C-alpha cells in the first residue's frame, strides 16, 4: 500500500480499525478530537459502532462492557479526561479485560492548557487509578510508529487480558507524516475469548468482576496480576538506541520529546560531541536492560521531557544510580527546543559529565 500523509490522531483511528477494533466510546477533548471525528465516519463503514458518551466516566465503562463482551474496543482522551477514566481503568485491569486507551497528553495540572504535555507519565506507568495494577504503556514517536503500535496494543491487550495505553501528546496527535497501514484484520477471525460474557449458552455463566471479598483470594488475584507484569517485563520491553554505542552523553526521552532529542544528537555529533539517544517505547514495562546497555559508556545521562521531571525518576531507578542523570524539562504546553537541548549537552560536556 502506498504511503499517505496523515495526522497522528486520524492515523491512530485507521490503525485501530485495521487491528480489528469495531467499537469506540469517547467524549470530546482537545487535542485528540480528530480521532473520534475520524472514527465517527469510519467505524459505521466497516459495521462498527462509534458512540459519543455523556462523559469520560461513562465512556470507559462502556469500554468495560464491550471488552467483557469479547470485542476489541478502544477509547481515547486527553489528560483531564483520562483522569476521569481512572476509576474504570482500575476496574478493567482488576477484571482482566483487554482494551486500548489513548492519551494525547496536554499541559496540566487541572484544566491546564491544550498544548502538548507529558506530565501524565506517572499516572500512566504507575497504574493511575486505585489498587496494584499496571497498564502496558506504549509511547510512539512518529505517525508510522503510532500505526504500528496500535496493532501491537490490541495484540498485547488480548495476550495479557490487560488494558494497554498509547501515551502520545498533542504534537503527535496533530502532526502529519507519511504512513503505511497494515492489512485489515478480520475481527471475526480473531481468537475466541471463552471467558467473555456473551450469554451462558450450554456452559456455566461467565462473570466479569473485580470484587473479591475474601482478602486471601484478593491477594492471590493480586499475585496473579503481578506475575503478568513480570512476564511483560521479560517479554515485551521495546526501545530504540540511537548512536549510543560510543556515547559519552546519552539523552533519554519518549514521544515527541525524543524527536527533539534526536535532532539535538545530530547537531551535537556535528560539533564533535559523542551524544546518543535512548528512547523507551514501552514505558511500562520499562526497558531496564536496554537502558543499562545504552548507557554503558555514558559519563552523563540527560532526560528530556515535557514535564517537571517524571520519566527521569524511572531513568535513575533503572540505571541503579550508577550514572549521573540530569534533567531538562518544559511544562504547561511548552515544548523543548533542539537548541536548548544542545546547549544542555554542551554544558554537560564542559562540566565533564559529572554530578547530577
Amino acid at each position: 500500500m502506498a504511503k499517505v500523509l496523515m495526522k497522528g490522531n486520524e492515523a491512530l483511528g485507521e490503525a485501530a480499525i485495521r487491528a480489528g477494533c469495531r467499537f469506540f466510546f469517547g467524549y470530546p477533548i482537545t487535542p485528540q478530537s480528530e480521532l473520534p471525528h475520524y472514527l465517527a465516519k469510519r467505524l459505521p463503514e466497516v459495521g462498527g459502532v462509534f458512540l459519543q458518551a455523556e462523559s469520560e466516566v461513562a465512556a470507559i465503562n462502556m469500554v468495560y462492557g464491550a471488552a467483557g463482551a469479547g470485542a476489541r474496543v478502544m477509547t481515547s482522551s486527553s489528560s483531564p479526561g483520562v483522569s476521569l477514566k481512572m476509576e474504570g481503568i482500575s476496574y478493567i485491569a482488576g477484571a482482566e479485560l483487554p482494551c486500548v486507551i489513548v492519551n494525547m497528553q496536554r499541559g496540566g495540572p487541572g484544566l491546564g492548557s491544550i498544548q502538548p504535555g507529558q506530565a501524565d507519565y506517572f499516572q500512566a506507568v504507575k497504574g493511575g487509578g486505585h489498587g496494584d495494577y499496571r497498564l502496558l504503556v506504549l509511547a510512539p514517536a512518529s505517525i508510522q510508529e503510532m500505526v504500528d503500535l496500535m496493532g501491537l496494543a490490541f495484540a498485547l491487550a488480548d495476550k495479557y487480558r490487560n488494558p494497554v495505553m498509547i501515551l502520545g501528546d498533542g504534537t503527535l496527535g496533530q502532526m502529519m507524516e507519511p504512513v503505511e497501514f497494515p492489512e485489515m484484520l478480520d475481527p471475526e477471525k480473531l481468537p475466541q475469548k471463552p471467558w467473555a460474557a456473551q450469554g451462558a449458552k450450554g456452559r456455566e455463566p461467565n462473570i466479569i468482576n473485580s470484587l473479591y471479598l475474601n482478602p486471601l483470594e484478593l491477594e492471590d488475584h493480586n499475585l496473579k496480576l503481578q506475575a503478568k507484569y513480570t512476564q511483560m517485563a521479560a517479554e515485551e520491553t521495546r526501545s530504540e538506541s540511537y548512536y549510543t554505542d560510543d556515547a559519552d552523553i546519552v539523552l533519554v526521552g519518549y514521544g515527541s520529546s525524543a524527536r527533539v532529542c534526536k535532532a539535538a544528537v545530530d547537531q551535537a555529533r556535528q560539533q564533535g560531541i559523542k551524544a546518543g539517544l535512548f528512547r523507551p517505547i514501552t514505558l511500562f514495562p520499562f526497558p531496564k536492560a536496554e537502558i543499562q546497555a545504552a548507557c554503558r559508556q555514558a559519563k552523563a545521562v540527560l532526560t528530556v521531557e515535557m514535564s517537571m521531571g517524571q520519566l527521569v525518576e524511572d531513568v535513575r531507578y533503572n540505571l541503579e544510580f550508577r550514572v549521573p542523570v540530569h534533567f531538562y524539562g518544559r511544562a504547561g504546553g511548552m515544548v523543548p527546543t533542539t537548541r536548548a537541548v544542545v546547549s544542555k549537552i554542551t554544558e554537560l560536556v564542559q562540566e565533564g559529565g559529572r554530578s547530577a
Partner: protein
Amino acid sequence: MITVFEKPKSLTPAKTHYCPGCTHGIIHRLVAEVIDELGVREETIGIAPVGCSVLAYNYFNVDMYEAAHGRAPAVATGIKRVHPDKVVFTYQGDGDLAAIGTAEIIHAAARGEKITTIFVNNAIYGMTGGQMAPTTLIGQTATTAPNGRDPEVQGYPIRMSEILATMPGAAYIARVSVHNPQEVAKAKKAIKTAFQVQLERKGFAMVEVLSSCPTNWGLTPLKALEWLKDNMIPYYPLGVQKAPEEVKA
C-alpha cells in the same frame, strides 16, 4: 414430597447474603422467573451494581458483570452495542442509580438503549450503613440525616421514574412495590413487560421497585413493609409511567 416451591433456573443455588426480611431477594426471584419464562437465560447478560446487591452476580445464573458504582447503564451500553441480539439488564439501587449514576441512567434512557433496568428504591444507602439516599423521604432519618431529611438542608427526594418517563428514548417506565403478594404479582408483570420491550427493541425500559430495608430503617421486616406502604407509596405513586401503545391496551 411434592414440589411447592421451585427455584428458577436463572437463579444459582447460592444462598443470598441479604438481611432477613430484605426484599432484594424477592426482586431477584421475580427477575429470574421472568428470564426463565421468556426462555432467554442463555442469551442474557446482567450487571450487578455497587450496593447491597453487589453480589448479584453470584445469584443470577446468567453471564454477569460487576460494575463500578453507578456505571451499570454505561457498561450495559457497551455490551448491548457489541451484542444487539442479547438480553442485557442492570440491577441497581437508588444511591447507585439516582446519585452517583444519575448521568449514566439519564443518558442511557435518552439514547433509547435497548436494555432493561431494575431499579431497587429502598430510600436509603443500605450497604454502607443507612446513609441518606437521593430518594430518602422528607423527615426520614438516616445516619447522615440524624434529625430527618430537611428540605432546607438536603433538598427533596428524586422521583426517577417520572424524570425518565419524559425521555423520548424511554419506551417503558413503571413503578411497582413488593410489600404484599398482590403487588408482587403486579411487579412481576411489569418486569416481564420491561424485558419484552427490550426483546421487541422498543427502547429503554425500567421498572422501579419500592423495596424495604428493615436493617437500616430500624424496623422488623413486617413493620418495614407497612412503613413502605404508608410512607413511600404516597410520594412514589405506583403505576405505569410510560408504555408503548400496545402494552397500555
